[in-house]
């Protein structure tokens, strides 16, 4: 696992979010005499999953340090809980703070400040949020911990579990216009993020980045469509100093070009996303296509896609879901001959490129049972195809191999 040089102290995210809580603390007494409405809510999932595919381990996201080993009942992957405090004033101003605990990158359960924001909208047309906000680069990507809000047990791993950040500290503005047919919304946002990612071996790296973007939403009847784009600018990509120096020294133009793509400096990934929801009567459908293009090698160039269909039978909703991530940037050669002098460089360059490729798809079948208000029990079976190395689930260390696994899951979701 490469290391990221911008390591900082562990509680940095708490400190960064702390000023917002301090703001809340200052504002709240000042307006105590006004029409403040306080509400405490929460959500949680008790989940268990099982698979029996020896040599493979299953994770739901690259931000998760633990993984489900073959032949063992795993209760950490999908289990999580969150508490949220809302303080709303006159329908225009709201202060929100949320803490979530789950199996994190360090394979621990330390509570994280996942939201700390001020939301202001005076006229119903323009709304502004500032603070720690969920990064919704993909539609519904800002509620992936809230199992009750999802039809599935977990958001599509290939699509959502491979996004390198879940929140950012910054601001966003949303404008909404009513049209003769529907409502058009436009959102712009920007800020900074720092998160921890774990590889399949449990190595943890810190990712500090700027991010910004915009998207358009169009809602009409049962349809909600999304077109968006965003940039994730990593402060400093993973370091491969020896490999980069070696490639540069060869004098071979292709090797030198590869060295520049591997060099550790700010690297940008540009996302383009097209998504849609259809929700009418008993049918609900969700589809998404996304392209991510990286200007280096420390993140993959990928296509993501998903299609999820559910049919409401009353309390029961069976669903089927297809999702995939595919690296479209193949391993580039160095242009160096395969002689003993260059064997290590060629092998190193190929291994590094393969390490960042993600090729995985899955088919999920499941059933959601809303057996009580605000309680849902779900069962889900995922069949996962792995081709080569993937950040999400392949722990076998066989980057050229391919494998399949079947994962059975059950989860109890609740909100209050």
């Amino acid at each position, binding site marked *: 696992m490469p290391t990221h040089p911008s390591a900082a102290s562990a509680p940095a995210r708490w400190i960064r979010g702390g000023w917002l809580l301090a703001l809340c603390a200052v504002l709240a007494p000042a307006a105590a005499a006004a029409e403040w409405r306080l509400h405490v809510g929460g959500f949680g999932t008790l989940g268990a999953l099982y698979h029996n595919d020896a040599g493979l381990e299953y994770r739901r996201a690259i931000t998760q340090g633990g993984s489900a080993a073959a032949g063992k009942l795993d209760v950490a992957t999908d289990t999580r809980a969150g508490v949220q405090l809302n303080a709303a004033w006159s329908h225009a101003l709201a202060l929100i703070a949320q803490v979530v605990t789950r199996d994190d990158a360090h394979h621990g359960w330390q509570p994280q400040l996942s939201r700390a924001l001020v939301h202001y909208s005076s*006229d*119903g047309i323009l709304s502004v949020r500032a603070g720690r906000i969920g990064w919704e680069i993909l539609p519904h990507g800002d*509620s992936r911990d*809230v199992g009750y809000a999802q039809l599935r047990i977990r958001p599509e791993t290939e699509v959502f579990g491979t996004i390198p950040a879940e929140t950012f500290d910054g601001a966003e503005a949303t404008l909404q216009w009513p049209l003769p047919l529907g409502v058009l919304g436009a959102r712009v946002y920007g800020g900074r993020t720092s998160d921890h990612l774990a590889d399949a071996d449990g190595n943890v790296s810190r990712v500090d980045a700027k991010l910004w973007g915009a998207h358009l939403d169009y809602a009409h009847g049962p349809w909600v469509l999304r077109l968006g784009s965003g940039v994730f600018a990593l402060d400093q990509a993973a370091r491969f100093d020896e490999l980069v120096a070696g490639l540069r020294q060869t004098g071979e133009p292709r090797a030198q070009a590869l060295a520049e793509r591997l060099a550790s400096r700010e690297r940008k990934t540009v996302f383009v996303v097209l998504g849609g929801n259809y929700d*009418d009567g008993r049918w609900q459908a969700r589809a998404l296509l996304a392209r991510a293009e990286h200007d280096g090698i420390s993140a993959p160039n990928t296509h993501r896609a998903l299609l999820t269909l559910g049919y409401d*039978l009353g309390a029961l909703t069976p669903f089927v879901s297809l999702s995939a991530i595919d690296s479209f940037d193949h391993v580039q050669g160095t242009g160096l001959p395969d002689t003993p002098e260059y064997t290590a460089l060629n092998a190193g360059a190929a291994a590094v490129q393969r390490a960042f490729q993600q090729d995985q798809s899955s088919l999920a079948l499941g*059933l959601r049972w809303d057996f009580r*208000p605000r309680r849902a029990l779900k069962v889900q079976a995922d069949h996962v195809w792995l081709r080569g190395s993937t950040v999400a689930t392949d722990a076998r260390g066989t980057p050229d191999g391919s494998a399949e696994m079947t994962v059975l899951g059950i989860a109890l979701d609740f*909100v209050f």
Partner: protein
Amino acid sequence: MHNPLTWLLTTLLLALPLTRLSAAEPAPEDLVIVVNPASGVSALASADAVNIFMGRYRRLPSGLVAFPIDISGGDQRQRFYWQLVRKNLAEIDAYWARLVFSGQTSPPLQVPDDATAVALVAQNRAAIAYVARSRVDARVRIVMALTQETP
């Protein structure tokens, strides 16, 4: 592992037909959407009601920022959302869970009964609520009637 899963799936499948059974009940009362007479709204399109109660665009046609109200008691909320967007309450609650816990917006204010909703609408120029037609009085104005349809 197989036995508990088999048991669970069997239970779910057996429960399926039970969820469709319902005893014969008297027809529920018509629901209507009401606003304050000073709101400047005389009629509401179905699309406007969807936008307001689902948090998509919270403005009344007159330009006021809408203040939607839900009835938490009885089966009125379930009937309302089924008639408005053909969604059951579990789907509505899941929809709001996503928006609330991502910090995007808040759901309609919940009050226990029609009388409280009518009183709030009468007091607030921008309030909007759904109530049984028989509970409407001169303090509020009917702007939309929902069609009788139950899940």
